């Protein structure tokens, strides 16, 4: 498993119904491309986050396929409409099978 993988998410605590909010996510990850060689000339195996998803109350907001060219600590900023109060669920899928998740609640008022 890749070391020091920590997901971070920023979502506003509240929004008005139907408002479009901005969400920022960042996960610390080496994103080793699989193209590089170590000091002895051996290929360093690929180790990346290959998929990122965000769901709101079970409904998909964004689903991203990540490729090896994406650099260290992938960062996403995107927008979502908030029709009602609920929970955002963020999921990152690692090459090694690990799945990292984070959730954020948002109230409508």
């Amino acid at each position: 498993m890749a070391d020091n993988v920590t997901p971070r998410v920023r979502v506003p605590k509240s929004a008005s119904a139907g408002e479009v909010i901005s969400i920022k996510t960042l996960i610390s990850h080496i994103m080793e491309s699989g193209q590089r060689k170590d000091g002895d000339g051996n290929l360093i195996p690929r180790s990346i986050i290959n998929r990122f998803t965000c769901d709101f109350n079970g409904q998909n907001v964004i689903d991203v396929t990540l490729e090896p060219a994406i650099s260290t600590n992938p960062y996403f900023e995107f927008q979502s409409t908030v029709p009602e109060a609920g929970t955002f669920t963020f999921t990152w899928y690692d090459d090694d099978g690990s799945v990292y998740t984070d959730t954020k609640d948002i109230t409508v008022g």
Partner: protein
Amino acid sequence: MTRKILKSAISAVALSLLAGAAAAEVGDQLQVNGDLDLVVETAAPAHMADTGIRTIYSGWVFRDADTQAMQMDDFDNPGLLYVDQGAEMWATPAGTSEKSCADCHGDASESMAGVRAVYPKWNESAGEVRSLQMQINACRTEQQGAEAFKYGKDEINAMEAFISMQSRGMPVNVAIDGPAQSTWEQGKELYYSRFGQLELSCASCHEQNYDNYIRADHLSQGQINGFPVYRLKDTKLTSSAGRFVGCVRDTRAETFKVDSPEFVALELYVASRGNGLSVEGVSVRH
């Protein structure tokens, strides 16, 4: 204030007028997280009277708007990843003592507040000027019974970043008199010594030509109040000594080692040229 900085400040204002209220105002005001103002421009300390520099600027002023903006929000500042790593190490026992930093120093936000601002600093019992990184390693080997961190690597830079963060917003205030004076003089001499095939001294670029371009790079005053920095080109932290290595190498010289006494002296001297600027915790540069 030099003409070009003034010009860019004016065009930044013009741009922000065009863009309306779209983005946070970038250019001459460094405010972090919308509530912490950092000093990026202030009067030069007294010892710089004969340098011709009246106003000192943080390196942040010289970077482009996107890079500046990254430092204005902790979420966008990748250096904070290392601060988190440092915080974890702070609380993790190490070495034969099986003690963590926290076991002796407690809550870093209290015990380490102001520490970064006064380093490099004379250490009475060791009889030498120590950089913050040397002090960290002294603690590890003498107190914790652990192996010293390797200079120039992520771990020590992360620890320095975490400690530095506890002083964010405080003015740099290194002592240059008393027992530290001879080291400071040595650092000053290095600053004005020309190195390498290109025969460049620190002053050639950062005193005589700051705000000009060296090829595509906008020369800063070479202030180190923002160190350790997250460099976008390296995607990792760099310490001030690490940056010195890069600078001397670029003059096509054999450099001093990253942990050499020469660079400690230089770090003290360069830090003293930034007395009055804010410690930026961990800054973002390209």
